[in-house]
């Protein structure tokens, strides 16, 4: 039965998280955008206590260990993350939790590894889990990873440089978290040789050499991690060390993206909604109502623009809910996850840019948050698979092509 009504549980969580976003995030959004690199520790502690005390997932994206029939977990995550990102996208990204590193552990680790690495997120001081894939010379082409892991007795030895690692310095320098590092154990094996390794905080041989200055999401920590003969225990390799003949293992790892792309899409939509709501309020204060259904020759350009923005955003939201819902039903959602991510990234980029135009001098001013939302929105068209990478995945699925047939 086709139904768009959120369950009462999800509505309650959404309302609770919205309150957090409104009261704990919006008031400090501008401050931590301007003071790029400074950390809002009070906010971190509030969010940490909330996530420990509350059954509501405040942005962890942590996966259920066991799949036990249909749930609403992924949809709940999408809905609550839209609220957090509505509060502030940069702050949302830096909420202490297992994050993308935790998602990788849950997707590829053994139950023992899950316990060993994830238990820490339910106790003590705020912690972060980060994920390191991108390198200076490889972004979307993850199969070209050059960071190496070489076995030496009871250890793996990591060498290489990772960039654009979200929450990297928070995870390994400023808390007792960890980072999941993707490295190759056999360069000649291509994708099949790439494996995920958990590197604990403060491991010798790992250093944070740089944090980026960015267009937007300035409250979010984006680190360069350098590994120089960094030794980690053998059992910090997630999954099997064997290099299979097929790329199934790597594909399994990439399946993490099927869960995280709807989350990124949802956070994109949160920013877009903030901009749209703000624009609507500003227009209403000026006595301009959007006249749905009025004939073309009576509509103003602003009304037409606004309706297009609104429809685009809702289209992105429904595609996102669908991808999350499919995951909850245990359906394969590789195509739909990329569809929603491609759509949401582009839609909010356009929506926020148009909102700045409509608001004119107010839109461009740093007195308001609109210009910041425009800067924040753009990252969603880039990270977790660029617009183009997601189109490529969609194209392969609809054409039934392998990654070799459609490059």
């Amino acid at each position, binding site marked *: *039965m*086709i139904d*768009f009504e959120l*369950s009462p549980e999800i509505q309650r969580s959404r309302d609770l998280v919205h309150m957090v976003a409104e009261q704990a995030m919006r008031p400090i959004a501008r401050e931590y955008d301007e003071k790029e690199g400074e950390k809002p520790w009070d906010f971190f502690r509030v969010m940490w206590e909330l996530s420990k005390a509350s059954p509501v997932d405040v942005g962890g994206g942590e996966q259920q260990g066991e799949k036990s029939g249909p749930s609403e977990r992924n949809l709940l995550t999408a809905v609550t993350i839209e609220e957090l990102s509505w509060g502030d996208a940069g702050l949302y990204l830096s909420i202490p939790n297992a994050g993308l590193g935790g998602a990788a552990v849950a997707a590829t680790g053994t139950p023992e590894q899950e316990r060993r690495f994830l238990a820490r997120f339910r106790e003590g001081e705020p912690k972060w889990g980060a994920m390191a894939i991108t390198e200076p010379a490889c972004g979307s082409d993850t199969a070209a990873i050059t960071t190496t892991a070489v076995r030496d007795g009871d250890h793996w030895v990591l060498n290489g440089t990772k960039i654009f690692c979200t929450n990297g310095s928070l995870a390994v320098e400023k808390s007792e978290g960890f980072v999941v590092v993707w490295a190759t154990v056999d360069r000649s094996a291509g994708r099949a040789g790439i494996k995920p390794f958990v590197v604990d905080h403060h491991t010798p041989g790992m250093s944070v050499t740089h944090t980026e200055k960015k267009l937007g999401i300035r409250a979010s920590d984006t680190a360069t991690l350098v590994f120089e003969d960094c030794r980690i225990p053998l059992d910090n390799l997630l999954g099997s060390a064997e290099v299979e003949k097929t790329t199934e293992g790597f594909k399994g790892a990439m399946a993490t993206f099927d869960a995280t792309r709807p989350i990124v899409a949802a956070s994109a939509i949160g920013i877009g909604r903030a901009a749209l709501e703000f624009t609507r309020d500003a227009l209403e204060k000026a006595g301009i109502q959007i006249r749905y259904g009025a*004939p073309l*020759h009576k509509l103003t350009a602003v009304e037409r623009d606004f309706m297009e923005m609104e429809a685009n955003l809702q289209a992105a939201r429904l595609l996102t*809910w669908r991808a999350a819902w499919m995951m909850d039903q245990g359906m394969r959602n590789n195509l739909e996850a990329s*569809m929603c991510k491609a759509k949401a990234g582009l839609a909010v980029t356009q929506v926020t840019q148009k909102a700045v135009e409509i608001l004119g001098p107010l839109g461009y001013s740093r007195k308001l948050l609109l210009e910041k939302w425009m800067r924040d929105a753009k990252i969603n068209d880039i990270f977790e698979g660029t617009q183009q990478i997601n189109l490529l995945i969609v*194209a392969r699925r609809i054409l039934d092509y392998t990654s070799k047939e459609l490059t």
Partner: protein
Amino acid sequence: MVSFQPSEEEQMVRDTVAAFAREQIRPVTREADETGSIPDSVIQQSWELGLVAGAIPEALGGGGDARSAVTGALIAEELGWGDLAIALHILAPRLLVYPVLEMGTEEQKKEFLPRFTGPRFRAVTAAVMEPRFGFDPAEMTTTARRENGHYVLNGAKCYVPLARTADAILVYARLGNGGCENVAGFLVPQGTPGLHIAEREKHMGLKGIETYEIVLEECRIPASQRLGGDRGCNFGRILNQCRVALAALAVGVGRAAFEYARDYAKQRRAFGVPIAQKQAIAFLLAEMAIEIDASRLLAWEAAWKLDRGEEATREAVLAKQYAANTALRVTDGAVQILGGHGYIRDHPVEMWLRNARGFAVFEGLAIV
């Protein structure tokens, strides 16, 4: 609880209509476009699917099924995928039956609905659009005035499907100044003095279905023939039901073009490979697929709101606009992917482009 899965019943209807579109509509679609006529057998066979009589109460001889805008959207997409002109012909009787069913008086239901429970297709229709630029319910130029227990209609309507063969036309006219709330519907039987059916219209697309301009000159009908009697009807809601139907039809037209272009791109070779292996083509197809799904979900959401009894003006307007844009871009993209071949009438994509362009213009041509 959110779900994107049609119910078993909805899925059954969808599969049945999809099979009909594939097996009965598709083989005659080009011929209908070229000759301007749809084989009676196709219309008659569609009638047997019960797409019109299904929602009529059992007491009046119908199927007694609950009417659902969501199911209506599923049906419209499949028929639109088959052929837009044929879809509009098949669905035309709903334009009168559904408003009577939902908003008619008991007498109107008893008078009109049993006519559609027989074994043969019965043509009836509605007249919504007017021969002027744009569509503006607030400034509808067809008017009705009350006079001695009658209404007197004056004005002109266009894009009236099947007007010449219809038993009756549901004519919408303005009773006073203002928006949708001052528009009323009037059940005008064929042959009523003052109702003139003008010549068949010629359009860029929709060539298979007969549509007409009609003129009303001091056309008098008894007050009891006003849809809903003195209570009137909710024209805003009817328009929204039409918008959702058009959105779903647009999704069907877009999907047809997308599938054709996708299959073509996989077998057409250039520079030693299928052109689908070139990103310029593959990305265009990917965008088409995303926008078609996005349009469908917007149409479903608006339909779902209508089924909950909401007015859903915002959702219906946005879904229709979005789906109309998508259909245009997708069919244009399909012509582009086929290149010179896309421009030739041997392939259907040029026809789909002509049909899709209409969605930005159409109002009130189909209803869920």
